[in-house]
């Protein structure tokens, strides 16, 4: 029914799942995220920041980019966009929401996820193929992985250093809410190598690296199968499609 990791994306059957992708002023990866949804077998639905209607979608992706130019703080102004009122309400009701990069920053600013992102500790923009360990494979967005899986997806950001106080970090660890951890090397100084986290219900996930850039052979990161063959990000979209189609 839905995509599996090894299936050729072009032959993936349609699942009927409608996944919204929000475009804010300054979003960059909304079209890539929509394409990833399509390759995983879902139907992408474009959502607009100024529209407070989610148009009945089954899940929402807040994509990467530099919404509102990262002015004030990354995600700080987007968090108050009309669409976010609807996203926050729906997320509290259990709607699966994924925030990628700038989307993760927006989820933190919106208090759907704890902590905040500050500038990388080395103060430079970074773009690389990043190894991650999947720590929690029971969220709406990670059920197609197995805990302990190592995946490689692109990372590209300026403000990617995840910070929170020790009490919050201890709570995240104790409740199994660290979803992804940087493997091999911590690229931005994030506390406890955290690359992605989830809320207590497991429907809201935020991560700094970009799964939507690793969904199609020929255009992904290098993998043992050859240059640019990596499609480790596809399972994130397949996971939510399975979750909402049932």
């Amino acid at each position, binding site marked *: 029914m839905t995509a599996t990791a090894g299936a050729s994306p072009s032959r993936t059957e349609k699942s009927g799942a409608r996944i919204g992708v929000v475009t804010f002023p300054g979003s960059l990866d909304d079209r890539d995220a929509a394409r990833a949804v399509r390759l995983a077998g879902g139907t992408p639905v474009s959502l607009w920041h100024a529209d407070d209607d989610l148009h009945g979608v089954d899940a929402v992706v807040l994509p990467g980019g530099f919404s509102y130019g990262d002015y*004030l703080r990354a995600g700080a102004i987007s968090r108050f966009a009309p669409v976010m009122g609807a996203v926050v309400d729906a997320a509290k009701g259990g709607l699966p929401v994924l925030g990628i990069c700038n989307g993760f920053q927006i989820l933190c600013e919106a208090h759907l996820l*704890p902590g*905040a992102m500050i500038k990388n500790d080395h*103060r430079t923009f970074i773009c690389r193929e990043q190894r991650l360990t999947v720590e929690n494979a029971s969220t709406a967005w990670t059920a197609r992985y197995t805990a302990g899986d190592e995946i490689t997806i692109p990372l590209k950001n300026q403000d990617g250093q995840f*910070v929170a106080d020790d009490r919050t970090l201890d709570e995240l660890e104790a409740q199994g809410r660290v979803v992804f951890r940087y493997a091999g090397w911590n690229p931005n100084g994030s506390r406890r190598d955290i690359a992605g986290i989830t809320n207590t219900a497991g429907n809201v996930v935020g991560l700094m690296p970009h799964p939507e850039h690793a969904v199609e052979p020929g255009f992904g990161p290098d993998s043992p199968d050859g240059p640019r063959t990596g499609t480790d990000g596809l399972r994130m979209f397949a996971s939510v499609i399975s979750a909402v189609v049932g």
Partner: protein
Amino acid sequence: MGRVVVEVMPKPEILDPQGKAVAAALPRLGFHGFTGVRQGKRFELEVDGEVTAEVLEAVRGAAQTLLSNPVIEDVVSVVAEHDPEA
């Protein structure tokens, strides 16, 4: 015209990469003896007329909800400034 000045600083326990970059540049330009730099933000909010208690209260609310993120920043001051020409 009234003006309220809000100052926001990164929390002491949060690494301040921008301050660190400035601190590293100072000795290169011959400014020695500075053991640390932290960089914050200053906002100037303008209103028509006087800065009343209600205005100050509204600015304090804005400072906590939009101008700062309490996870990483502290609002260190909210002060009314009077225009000398008014």
